[in-house]
């Protein structure tokens, strides 16, 4: 099974490396959001560590949504999704491969956006980086677990660019709120023990969303 998930993931990666359709848009959009916040928060320089978690996750989520909107675009061309569905295999494999690809694209975009954030807001976070990576990773897996399923639902609709965020954001809210809270704790206090609650909530929601999305994926692809 993992070989097939890897094949779907590798195919998406190869297409993205050639076209750079998603990553370019995600990076551009994420950095533009940062630039806007950089000017807007000029007067809040003294308490910048308090507001950066929100800025970061707004930027991650907006750029991630752009990527998710493109996730099934290559499958729509030439009815490639139909070719995938004709393969006698568990259709959850398609979901897992696509989710892995979406998560990797989003993590790459997040890494770049994060570096720009450090520069724009003049932050030093060497000590906090392992914890931040953990929060970014869980948050991104949770976000893409739901996003991949909803992207598959919205790809055949006329207003998919509008529909996806409308149905995605309310569902992933528990993960996002706790991701912002966890990031705030990491950047503002050395009390990493208080990270337990937001990380647990994020992990539980990620697991539940992932399992439910995997099980539902087969049904959203049928007409």
């Amino acid at each position: 099974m993992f070989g097939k998930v890897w094949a779907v993931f590798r195919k998406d990666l190869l297409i993205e490396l050639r076209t750079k359709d998603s990553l370019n848009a995600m990076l551009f959009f994420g950095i533009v959001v940062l630039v806007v916040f950089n000017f807007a928060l000029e007067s809040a320089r003294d308490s910048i560590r308090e507001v950066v978690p929100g800025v970061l996750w707004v930027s991650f989520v907006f750029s991630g949504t752009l990527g998710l909107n493109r996730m099934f675009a290559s499958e729509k061309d030439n009815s490639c999704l139909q070719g995938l569905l004709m393969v006698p295999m568990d259709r959850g494999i398609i979901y897992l491969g696509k989710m892995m690809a979406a998560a990797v694209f989003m993590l790459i975009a997040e890494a770049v956006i994060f570096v720009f954030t450090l520069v724009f807001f003049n932050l030093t976070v060497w000590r906090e980086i392992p914890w931040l990576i953990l929060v970014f990773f869980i948050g991104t897996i949770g976000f893409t677990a739901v996003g991949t399923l909803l992207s598959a639902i919205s790809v055949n609709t006329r207003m998919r660019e509008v529909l996806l965020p409308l149905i995605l954001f309310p569902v992933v809210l528990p993960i996002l709120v706790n991701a912002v809270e966890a990031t705030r704790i990491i950047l503002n206090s050395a009390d990493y023990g208080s990270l337990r609650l937001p990380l647990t909530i994020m992990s539980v929601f990620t697991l539940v969303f992932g399992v439910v999305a995997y099980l539902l994926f087969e049904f959203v692809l049928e007409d």
Partner: protein
Amino acid sequence: MSEPTELIEIRGLAKYFGRFAALRDLRLSVRKGQFIALFGRNGAGKTTLLRILAGLSRASAGTVSVHGCGPGAARGEIGYLSHNTAIYLDLTALENLRFYARLLDLPADDAELEDRIALVGLAGRSHEPVRNFSRGMQQRLGIARAFLHDPAILLLDEPFTGLDQAGTEFLQNYLRGAHAGGRTCLMAIHDAPVGYALADRLVVINRGGVALDLARGAVTLEDFQERYKALAEDR
């Protein structure tokens, strides 16, 4: 347990899209090795029937059995080709086949896949991105993709759409070879002479059901065209 005599058995098949009935009470039996040409005007239900047989769409009512089981369970025995080739434009021909071979658990190495590509007339083009291919070349690669796992049943939805003369001849010869090799074929087509030349059974779908079902030997092309035209005009 004895093998069922019919490879495909369709009884009382119906498919509704909202209140519109694309298929209603459709009955059809297909024996192993038969080549059926499905005719019918646009919207008659040909594509819907093929999609249900391929397990891509769920029937609203009725039963469909392929080899005694549901179409979803028989996907490994079915090759489905429509005018949409299910080929990734940003991958090369070889990468496309390699990808599908991995998903199908085929132990195909690159040399074997290159042979497949050569077999559909694309020798020397394996490492080119499909985006550079003409429509006919993409359709040829689509054939290699759809039949990569040597399926026993070929479902073809207007496979000649957009093909030039050479491509049409190639596909006709390919399908004749598949039929001669014992494959069972169901092909939706508008071109009566081509369908008549390839198939050994002619079925016309009208208003979501089978309106005409004839062995090719029982009717001349002219007679069939006349009867098909009369049905098509009967709205």
